[in-house]
């Protein structure tokens, strides 16, 4: 009964919604392209205008795919962090992953520019991706080292937040000594962007995402056991430290790669797990992981469509849209479906 109803929702509605929104997302843009032309282009056929195929295949398709990847990846990593830290305010970036990435990018764009005299670094360049990956990877290594040494996850959470503050402070100092132009380039990166990826980058992002999702599927059992408490999880035969390490690894792969390619995209990772828990009324990660991933993809596709302001050439920063659109929806659902307290102790 209860179980079947959410399984039905999961199996039918979410994939259908993703498919529909995916097509809609591709068909919207500053240039109008008829739907039959889009389907023809997607299925490998010819289009009436060659430029249409170019727009679809090299701009809109990679963007829609990265929206799906970003939404799914951030939502899964947010869910994992909320369960690991038993904290409804946790998100993919509580461990300082985005702060690390920001530091890497800030060093490149703010300090790097002055030191090496590159002048202007391409906004979508591989250098930015490398700098962000190096930054988040470094923080990841630090957090993993700490997680092997500390007993409880709460300590880890605080240390993650401290890393965040620390890198934030360094970025502030860098900004203070940078020119307005440099700061603007850096600011653009922090706004987040889905559109800048070429096919190579989309493939890398998608492969890392698949790796992270596979890892998170293997983590269903430990995540469910951790819902009780770390002591209970241990009594169920779980190696808590190993599980914690793998959860952090999975989250970092997902959130780190997304931040590297698309910038620090806020809100999705925090809100989508809550949204999904309320909609499906369950704590079981076997249901939550796929449904959170799909809900995340849906939310991101919608946000992306809103961000490109249908009918205009303007593209708003995706980071602003996710919160602008998401926050009222989450508030509305909480007011309607009751408190989140049910999912979190204390």
């Amino acid at each position, binding site marked *: 009964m*209860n179980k079947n109803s959410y399984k039905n929702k999961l199996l039918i509605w979410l994939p259908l919604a993703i498919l529909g929104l995916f097509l809609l997302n591709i068909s919207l843009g500053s240039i109008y392209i008829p739907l039959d032309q889009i389907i023809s282009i997607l299925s490998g056929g010819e289009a009436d205008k060659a430029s249409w195929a170019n727009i679809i295949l090299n701009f809109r398709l990679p963007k829609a795919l990265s929206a799906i990847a970003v939404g799914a990846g951030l939502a899964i990593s947010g869910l994992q962090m909320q*369960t690991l830290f*038993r904290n409804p305010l946790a998100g993919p970036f509580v461990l300082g992953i985005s702060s690390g990435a920001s530091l890497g990018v800030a060093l490149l764009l703010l300090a790097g520019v002055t030191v090496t005299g590159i002048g202007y670094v391409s906004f979508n360049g591989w250098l930015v991706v490398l700098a962000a990956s190096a930054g988040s990877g470094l923080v990841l290594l630090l957090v993993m080292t700490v997680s092997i040494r500390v007993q409880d996850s709460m300590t880890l959470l605080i240390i993650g937040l401290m890393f965040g503050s620390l890198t934030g402070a360094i970025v502030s100092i860098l900004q203070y000594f940078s020119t307005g132009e440099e700061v603007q380039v850096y600011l653009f990166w922090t706004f987040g962007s889905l559109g800048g990826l070429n096919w190579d980058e989309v493939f890398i992002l998608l492969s890392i995402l698949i790796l992270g999702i596979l890892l998170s*599927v*293997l983590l*269903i*059992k430990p995540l*469910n*056991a*951790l*819902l*009780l*408490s770390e*002591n*209970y999880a*241990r*009594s*169920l*035969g*779980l*190696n808590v430290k190993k599980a914690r390490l793998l959860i952090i690894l999975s989250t970092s792969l997902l959130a780190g790669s997304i931040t590297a390619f698309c910038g620090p995209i806020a809100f999705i990772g925090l809100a989508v797990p809550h949204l999904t*828990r309320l909609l499906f*009324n*369950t*704590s*079981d990660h*076997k249901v939550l992981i796929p449904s959170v991933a799909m809900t995340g993809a849906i939310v991101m596709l919608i946000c992306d469509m809103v961000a490109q302001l249908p009918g205009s050439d303007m593209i708003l920063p995706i980071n602003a849209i996710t919160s602008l659109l998401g926050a009222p929806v989450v508030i509305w659902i909480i007011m309607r479906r009751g408190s989140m*307290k*049910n*999912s*979190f*102790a*204390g």
Partner: protein
Amino acid sequence: MSANLTILKTDNLSIGYKSGKKQSEVMSNINVELKRGQLVCFMGPNGVGKSTLIRTLIGAQKALAGKIFIEDKDFAKISAAELSKLVSVVLTDKINAGNMSVRELVTLGRYPHLNWSVTPNAADLKQIELAIDQAKVRPLENRKIYELSDGQLQKVMIARALCQDTPILILDEPTAHLDLNNRIEMINMLSDLAKETNKAILMATHELDLALQSADRIWLVGMNQPIINGFPEDLVLNGKIDAVFELKGFDLRTGRLEKKVGKGKVSLSGEGHAYLWTKNALERNGFEVIDDSEIQIKIKPYPLSWYIKNKGEHIVHTLENLIEKIFN
């Protein structure tokens, strides 16, 4: 015979906390054992280290010295996965699973027997059903955890532990926060479970009265005293329990609060419950009941009334009136 009933044994165990080279010992020279089919109550004042010992026995922290044996196997050589098939627990930890149904929570107890995809097979499902019945939570089966009362949640946590199907069950203060009725139900259930399922059940508790009526053994520990594993009534009679708890105004031998007497002496005649409760009312109000006194009270049945012969003669129909009359 008693040797093969023993499932858990400690040998000069010493427990406590270790950070770096600093070591703070909480309890030492622990030599206790658990036997199959027995309910053992673990008692002692707050802060004496009960939880530390429990944490050590469930593998949440390492022993400082000495050894624990489960089924003659050295505890230190038992992996977490193996231990989860030997010991199940009910802790005081807050759980984060409000959105789960009772059935889902009980199913978590099956995890040591499941692979990564956590799909129970026929045998697992059978054990889940059995655990739900054993802990008497069948009517709650489809409820959400956040809808449960403290007492119901505690029974569900016991069902979860039973679902784990281990020979040893360890509970840390399962009756805390429960009302009297739920406490009695809980302790009776555990006592029955020990007999029916032949499990060794260890329960830390402060419920002295309930423990004395249900426990097969008591592990008794006082401040800076070695832990004693004794037969409950013997511990009462040899004064060990009194020594540990330094009972204030509670006469353990009669199982009652000590009465303050001094208001006067009365003699009482009557039978059955009416006699007991009249005596209770008199003693609670400071009257000592003796064989022969100037004040005489006779209990008359049908309808229940009390005949008082004091300075005059009275008949009253409630105990409250009786106490008022003899005060005057």
